[in-house]
């Protein structure tokens, strides 16, 4: 029994306001015209241009071929998000499995080799990475978009911690039950990691979803446009002499928030629980 003081709510409300008001303003601003936003800044009240903006953003056939609509970008963003999240989970679970459950030379070396990838993000090694991709003939492909981003340790690190907390006896029981490494992995470990996978999924989904620079460099085909790229291409003119279509950028941003937020809301319970379980 801990007494809850109004003060606690006050802090939470302030924190929530600090975090959410900007997002709310993005939403509200998306219903005003670009010129209004350009001249007056962000809005906290709704405007009258919302329907037009969202209709345009969703159905406007942009790009050279006229195929680049909000829906196409949404599709590609989803492919990026899912592809990355799933790829990440598969790769890092397998690697973490090998590192934790096998007795083999170099396990520590391998762990540090993988962990070191936290030290240098893609942005910093982007040019050489591009050359590698082109040598592998992976430009303009979903594989090329997704796979290089997988070279990072976060997921492996998470799963390693989680596997360490799985009771030893489960492996022992499974071995006595005649399960080999693959069967144990598929039959026992994967189902046990469900909540952890959900947690990682959200984090990674958002990461993949929000990629910009790499897709820009990697693809030359309009059919690979993502929402993030749509937003950036609207906004990039602000450095020059034009008025960017702020309203459309905000509308795209709001649309871009919907799937991740939906994922967060749906998986929230699992999410928090999943992250917790590693600490046991």
């Amino acid at each position: 029994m801990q007494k809850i003081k109004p003060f606690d709510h006050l802090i939470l409300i302030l924190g929530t306001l600090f975090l959410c008001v900007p997002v709310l303003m993005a939403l509200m601003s998306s219903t005003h015209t670009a010129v209004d936003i350009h001249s007056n800044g962000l809005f906290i009240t709704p405007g009258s241009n919302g329907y037009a903006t969202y209709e345009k953003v969703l159905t406007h056939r942009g790009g050279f071929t006229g195929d680049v609509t909000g829906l196409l970008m949404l599709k590609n963003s989803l492919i990026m998000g899912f592809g990355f999240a799933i790829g990440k989970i598969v790769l890092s679970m397998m690697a973490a499995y090998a590192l934790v459950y096998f007795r083999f030379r170099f396990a520590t070396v391998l762990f540090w080799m993988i962990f070191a990838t936290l030290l240098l993000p893609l942005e910093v090694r982007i040019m050489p990475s591009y050359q590698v991709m082109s040598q592998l003939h992976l430009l303009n492909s979903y594989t090329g978009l997704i796979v290089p981003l997988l070279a990072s340790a976060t997921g492996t690190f998470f799963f390693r911690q989680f596997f360490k907390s799985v009771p030893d006896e489960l492996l022992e029981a499974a071995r006595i039950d005649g399960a080999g490494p693959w069967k144990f992995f598929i039959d026992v470990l994967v189902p046990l990691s469900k909540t952890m996978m959900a947690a990682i999924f959200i984090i990674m989904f958002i990461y993949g979803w929000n990629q910009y620079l790499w897709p820009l460099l990697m693809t030359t085909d309009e059919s690979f446009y993502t929402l993030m790229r749509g937003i950036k291409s609207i906004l990039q003119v602000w450095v020059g002499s034009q008025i960017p279509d702020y309203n459309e950028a905000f509308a795209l941003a709001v649309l871009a928030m919907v799937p991740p937020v939906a994922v967060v809301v749906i998986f929230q319970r699992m999410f928090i629980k999943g992250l917790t379980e590693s600490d046991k």
Partner: protein
Amino acid sequence: MAELTLNAVGKTYSGGVKAVSGVDIQISDGEFIVLVGPSGCGKSTLLRMVAGLETVTDGEIHIGSRLVNQLDPAERDIAMVFQNYALYPHMTVRDNMAYGLKNRRTPKAEIETRVAEAARMLELGQYLDRKPRALSGGQRQRVAMGRAIVRQPAAFLFDEPLSNLDAKLRVSMRMEIRKLQQRLGTTSLYVTHDQLEAMTLADRLVVLNGGRVEQIGAPLEVYRKPASTFVAAFIGSPAMSLLDATVEGGRLMLEGHVLAEVDHKAGPVTLGLRAEDLRLVARGGVPMRVEYIEELGAHRVVHGMVGDQSLAVVDQGAEAPGDLIHIAADPARLHLFDAATGQRIDVRSRVGEFAR
């Protein structure tokens, strides 16, 4: 079903810790062997070597006629029940039991029959579709048992399977295990550090101490003729009181009182007395100052001091702390141990009731 032979078995962990050494045990088909000993004495290590979960660094282990030292756990035809059950939390009770069989490519129909049979035996029928988390501790325990039985292995291995249960459940579960093993007739090796459990379950007890076998024998034999002070103190509740005594000219002396005549050379000895072998006498006997009393309902355990050595006596009387009482025992029920080595001394004759 098979015999189990441990031949000079030893284990040195890679850090250099010698957890088990020179263990020889011969277990006949269908026998129920209980390994007891204090925490850290190597019980689990020994069991896990039999299971194939630890490498055997010395000696040989045979199951039936096969030398299994190099075999994988799955190839040894054994089943194991773990202390914390180690059920697969994501599988139903049915799947938990069936998993080992599936991995052995047992035909579907056969699996179903065996699971149904085990469920009936363990009264788990109505829980077959639940996940472990929806079961009580006792029920989980039975699922773990079920997982072992369906396999119809050559041997069962149990590592403290009851220690997570509460006292009441522990008592009822240990009966069930015993009944089951008798019905199936499967050779079993059972680890516990609860001596009551050990006594009630075992065909033969193996008392381990510091990685070595201290004594092997039927429970009552071990109880009545403990081979050393270690075994004496470990088996029996309340624990046997061990006191310093001396033999002087063929007489066993405790704090200046003659207890019995013994055929042993003069010198210090350790005297073992079980609380239930002692009784109160109105006069004579050895005087004991009552310190405190445990009321257990059925009887009371009186703890007191003889000189400056402590002693426990079972009694139905009405003494209170501070009272001076006199106790006596049948000399046949005295245990003598070598004061230096702690080894049992079997004296050839003892005469008279102690302290006339």
